[in-house]
């Protein structure tokens, strides 16, 4: 196996263009190293991005926050800026893996791995974040277009995630996050949900809902969003939403849970987060 540790983004891109399919990128290593261990990873070239310190940042701008791709999950999980402006991302980061893993895992790695249960993807969907991809050119991809299938994203072999842009929301907006796992640490989501709602008293002006572990990729619950937006939030509407969500998702059965249970929990968590943001 060959190993390269570029110090800058241009260096990394040159390597990626050169090696293409023969190379795999590694950042924190918390997903890549287990797949090396299991033999799943076949590539013979490793391009280590972890030395590109310039991509570790959390910056606040007037209308958005910018998180460098190589920012560790633990930095996100302890950032005041994230706590204030993207509280659901803050919460999700705090529940990802365990503290040791969080010190190595990066937001770019979590997104690029493209797990249907990716912890940071779920709040980023509700926050309508944008993934900034750096390849030959810079591209901005809304997070809901970033995931293609299980462990498949739009990233090409010569592209990497430079940063994630999270728009700030106005004071009328409430957010909530919930992760259901089989234990209280080191738990892969059985179902996870994030919601962002803009309310005017009991009138819903905007609804964005992200789900993890209920489909081949992290998804938005568009149908339910549509049901909620521009409507009075009545008990009846809430019940209708919880009944509809089952039609929008396509969970699988695995050793952690059956698809029936996941479907029911998608509804239970939806009810809970909606109650949380409307109180």
């Amino acid at each position, binding site marked *: 196996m060959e190993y390269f540790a570029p110090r800058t983004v241009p260096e990394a891109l040159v390597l990626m263009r050169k090696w293409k399919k023969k190379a795999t990128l590694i950042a924190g290593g918390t997903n890549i190293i287990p797949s090396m261990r299991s033999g799943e990873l076949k590539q013979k070239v490793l391009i280590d991005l972890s030395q590109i310190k310039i991509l570790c940042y959390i910056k606040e701008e007037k209308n958005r926050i910018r998180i460098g791709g190589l920012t560790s999950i633990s930095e996100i999980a302890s950032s005041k800026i994230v706590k204030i402006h993207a509280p659901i991302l803050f919460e999700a980061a705090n529940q990802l893996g*365990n503290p040791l893993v969080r010190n190595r895992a990066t937001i770019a790695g979590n997104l690029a791995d493209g797990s249907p249960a990716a912890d940071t993807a779920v709040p980023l969907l509700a926050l309508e974040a944008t993934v900034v991809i750096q390849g030959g050119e810079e591209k901005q991809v809304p997070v809901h277009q970033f995931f293609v299938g299980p462990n498949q994203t739009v990233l090409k072999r010569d592209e990497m995630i430079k940063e994630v842009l999270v728009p700030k929301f106005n004071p009328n907006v409430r957010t909530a996050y919930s992760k*259901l796992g*089989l*234990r*209280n*640490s*080191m*738990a*892969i989501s*059985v179902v996870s949900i994030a919601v962002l709602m803009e309310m005017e008293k009991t009138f819903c002006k905007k609804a964005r809902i992200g789900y993890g572990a209920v489909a081949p990729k992290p998804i938005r619950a568009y149908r339910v969003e549509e049901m909620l937006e521009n409507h009075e939030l009545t008990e009846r509407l809430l019940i209708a939403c919880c009944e509809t969500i089952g039609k929008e998702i396509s969970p699988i059965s695995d*050793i952690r*849970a*059956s698809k029936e*249970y996941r479907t*029911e*929990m998608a509804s*239970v968590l939806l009810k809970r987060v909606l109650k949380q943001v409307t109180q």
Partner: protein
Amino acid sequence: MNEKTELRIIGKPIPRHDAWEKAFGLTCYAADFSLPGMLYGKVLRSNYPSARILSVNTSRAERLKGVKAVLTAKDVPRNESVTRFGQTHAVGGGFEGLYRVLADRKVHFMGEAVALVAAETEEIAGKALELIRVEYEPLPGVFGPIEAMKPDAPLVHEGRPNIITHYEVVKGDVETGFSEADIIVENTYRVPFVDHAYLEPESGMAWIDEDGVITIRVSTQVIEHFRGIADLLNLPHNRVRVIGTYVGGGFGGKEDITVEAFLALLTYKTGRPVKLTYTREESILSHSKRHPYVMIYKTGAKKDGRLTALQAKLVSDAGAYVYLSPWVLLYSMVNAAGPYQVPHVKVDGYTVLTNNTFTSANRGFGAPQVCFAYESQMDELARRTGLEPEKIRMMNYLEKGEALATGQILERHVALQETTEKVIEALGERTLPSGQMRIGRGIASGMTSYGRMVFLHDTSRSHVSIEMDGSVTIRAGIQDIGGGQASSLCQITAEILGVPIEDIKIYIADTALTPLAGTTTATRQLYMSGNATLMAAREVRKILVHKAAGMLGIDPESLDLVDREVIDKEETGKSLPLKEVVRACASDGLPLYHVALFKAPFRNVAQFERIEGQIFPDFTFGTHGAEVAVDEETGKIQVLKLISSFDVGRAINRLSVEGQIEGGAIYGMGYSLTEEVILNQGITMTPSFSEYLLPTSLDVPDVETILIESGDGVGPFGAKGVGEPSVCSVAPAISNAVYDAIEVRIYDLPLTPEKIVRALQSKVKAKV
């Protein structure tokens, strides 16, 4: 010394002697040891749970540069033996079983070892495994014990039935008993495969010493396997030496031969030191598991709560090889009716081969499984009679002098009443429910034996000696698996010889150099090695006191050993430094050591078809109480309180005893809520700790320990063992608490959130 003498060090919460090295990272665990010229061993394992081996081609692997040995069944001098699992003589009862080192014509479970490799580096060894070509012909397999009992089931091993053993317990006549019952509760309970999940994977190193002795340094609970290793190599027993390391967790999983056989073979064939450490996945895949049981229970009681009859059918999954399955079943048979006075009992137990991972010892050894069943039954009876859970139990608990259903008389203190009272008191005020959280409380009592079955002629030996400068050396074969086994012997010796514990050095677990102490299993070491050490230390004390008496001109009865001195209890001020007495003994040619053999009292068991009589030396009785919060929408369970009360006889080291009980509570909690090795058609679906879920620090309640010290144990100073008892009744306490919260009973472990939700839904359906 009599019981009334105040004990100086016994009972104190002193730090263990091995704790400091562990805190500083100095302890050399099995995988931490290396020798120059060392090779790395790896094991090739079966790809199928049931298959014929058509051919094994090792030529490419052998040709790989750096590979020094590739071994298959034909290379093992004695690949198969009928082993008695450590017993030196046949005891009957179907306790023997086939032990096979490497798969020969067939593979019987996924993960069975097929070939061994030793190479210069781990990487080369791994590559060599890939180059071994095995041609398999998959065969039908059987993956559940009930199916395996059927007449048309595929045989796991040719030429022998799948049913290994059937035992029976009969007391009175259950038909009569049921006819007298006002209430009858019938249920089927199921418990799964679980893993010991010690954090230290199996590991060891073997080499041939300068005298040609095969030496194996290994993480093990049983150094006595040196005999089985010698036998498989066709070597005399005194040419194989096993050195046991400080074990990073055993729990019964390192009780059988794990890496020793493979290491011995590879070093024997290559002439070089060989190191072998399992990966975690390999450990989960291929080492023994706890026996799953299907338990069909029928319990009858009068409406006032008194039990009239108990009938149970127990079927355990032995996996692909016999190992300790008959033993575990025997324990279950004795425990099946629980610690209760039941006039009519019938228990039928079967242990059955399947093509699943083989099952063997796991902390509790058959007691936790049946405890889940009988304590759930008691809880349901409590509901049906309207009696409180503690009341119906207290009405039926056995007392000292009474007998179990097998006729075993409980000769020592039975602390069930007190432990239950204390648990109820400690549970205190019920937590208030909030939102979707329903609160429930449950209790469960258990009894678990300590010390091995009394017909096995169990023995332990300990050698205590005192050096010229007054420092003390203990040599004992005891294996230390983290329960303070070695440290307790130091504490006992310190007490008897009146020296600070820092003055004692213990050498453990070396078949060449330490007198054999027997297995670290069956919660027997404190009882057996503790007593042996007590005997040895007392003999040394006698010699010293007698000498000192002569030197001081005082009656030996008046002397005591305190703080490195021999002093006059009558306070005449006369005393001698201990080392002066030692030197005086030495110059007189008196022995300054004693090696004691402690023999557990033997009782014969004539037959095993019907299990009866005194089988165990004694039991540890205790009660668990749990309070849980159940989220009625997600089914998630949080244990809010877990109270453990045990009669430990005498706490030799308070910290150790609490540690065992706290650890056992969480070991049991994992069994109740999150742990299951899922096998699907013999294939392990939970290969790593990402899928096999142990409790983390955020999952645990604060465990409260309430100790009772009756002084009535058979161990030193009246101690009882607590390592296994601490697990027994946790699962039913939690399960009963869940019932209290949601009014639906779950009959199989683990209590996953999904099962709770299903149970609640079926309850709603039933009402409609």
